[in-house]
């Protein structure tokens, strides 16, 4: 069984979750990754959903943060203020998964507007990037998605560079960007490529990135998913291929 590129992305995303973490996710690939983590190495990881759902037992496959499939068997059905104020701003949620139209070299995120085009906006993203200690971004690796500097900073990474996050009054953060080409990491710094996806090259990364990322001296290759991870993903977590139309295509 060989993994599709986006399946690899989900599996590598799942590996960022520690057992026992509180994790705030939306829907889509991040939710698949978090659910996979719960079914493999992190059975004690707990999900928090910005709409007010705490610790649900996810029924496949939610398409919205208020999808009844995401409210099933929860510890509590509360409010946005409880989830984003009482848990995230309170500092109890270690890991947050985020997306965005643009991610720049200092891991700032733009989900508000690109070139006059109106995007959905922050939602809980700014709150998650402001208060979680680890942010994981799963995204296709396209040049336009990785500019040197976001046209608009919706959610803070390291802002203008080292030290700026602390200067702004924000706590320390660790960012991991997982794409179909590589893994990039940053901690009060610019994003550095620390691993390549199986078969991907440094050249391909440079070609598809709007800035010139540094590469770690010891460049790892991401471990391919084991068959059980793929089975869980395909048979239990997204059996209807809601987020993997390409799987039907095959």
């Amino acid at each position: 069984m060989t993994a599709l590129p986006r399946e690899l992305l989900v599996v590598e995303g799942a590996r960022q979750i520690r057992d026992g973490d509180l994790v705030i996710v939306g829907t889509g690939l991040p939710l698949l990754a978090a659910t996979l983590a719960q079914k493999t190495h992190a059975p004690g990881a707990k999900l928090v959903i910005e709409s007010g759902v705490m610790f649900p037992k996810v029924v496949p496959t939610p398409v919205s943060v208020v999808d009844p499939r995401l409210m099933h068997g929860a510890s509590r059905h509360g409010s946005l203020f409880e989830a984003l104020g009482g848990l995230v701003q309170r500092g109890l949620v270690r890991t947050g998964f985020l997306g965005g139209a643009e991610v720049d070299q200092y891991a700032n995120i733009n989900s508000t507007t690109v070139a006059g085009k109106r995007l959905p906006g922050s939602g809980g993203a700014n709150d998650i990037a402001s208060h979680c200690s680890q942010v994981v971004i799963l995204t296709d690796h396209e040049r336009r998605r990785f500019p040197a500097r976001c046209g608009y900073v919706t959610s803070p990474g390291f802002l203008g560079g080292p030290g700026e996050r602390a200067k702004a009054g924000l706590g320390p953060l660790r960012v991991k960007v997982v794409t179909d080409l590589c893994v990039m990491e940053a901690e009060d710094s610019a994003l550095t490529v620390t691993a390549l996806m199986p078969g991907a090259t440094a050249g391909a990364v440079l070609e598809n990135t709007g800035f010139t990322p540094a590469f770690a001296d010891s460049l790892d290759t991401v471990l391919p998913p084991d068959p059980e991870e793929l089975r869980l993903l395909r048979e239990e977590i997204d059996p209807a291929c809601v987020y993997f139309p390409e799987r039907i295509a095959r």
Partner: protein
Amino acid sequence: MHKLLTASEAVGRLVAHGSVVGMGGQNINRCPMALVHEVIRQGVGGLTVVGCNLSLPLDMLVAAGLVVRTEQGTGNLERYGTLFAWRRAVERGQVTVGDHSHLAMASRFAAAALGLPYLPTRSLLGTDLLADMVASGVAVESVDPFGGRPLVLVRAMAPDVALIHANRADTLGNTVIEGVTSHEVDMVRAAKVTIVSAEEVLPAGAFADRPEQVTIPEAYVTAVVEQPFGAFPTSVYRAYDFAESEIKEYQAVGRTGDEELRAWISDNLGASFEDYLATRDAGGTLRGALSDRMRSLV
């Protein structure tokens, strides 16, 4: 005061041209569709629509030409895409936008709900989002006088009228919501008046044996409207799932253009929400299926 009204009476009395409308629901869940349809039928315009996530009801109001401004955390339908009418109106400059993080917006409602001029937050720091909020006068940068750290103060938001849809209410306005409540409880406590539509309206005091389970007490509710499937095609937890086919159709029309949306609205809304439901789901088979599906999910 007698609170049990029809949607037409409640909207006619409580939603005025130029109102700041606090919008209940989120994404595909518990949007106050019956009340919003009535606002469209009565053509109440010049509205500022505020909420956390704004979705289907906002897009219909914008398509109907009734909205001049929105203040929100997000405007979209997640997997079902952007709000086409809203996006076009914003890009044309016909609708102005005040962006927030969801916590910032929830904090603005909570401030007004507590009779406070603002609440502090540690979100927003260092971003263009904060700069825009400061420029529009809804946030100021501050410093914690106890610890000396930077802090943002977000201004109280008290809607002129809040519109929400709930599972149950009694005739006094005591309201029970099942599933998550998003931003709605504080928004309602903040609003000058509130209209609650509910799947079921029960006699006065129906919840008095379990007052802990009342989500919103009568003190904050001005009018109650009974409307089964009043959130259709969005979901109501434990009552019915959302109608994906309906949302996809609306989005397909929305993608084509504003003219097409206005045509869809006039072809489908009818003279009442019951008309609309009969048009979209003549025999009620879709509604039956959505109720069955929800039963299988809870």
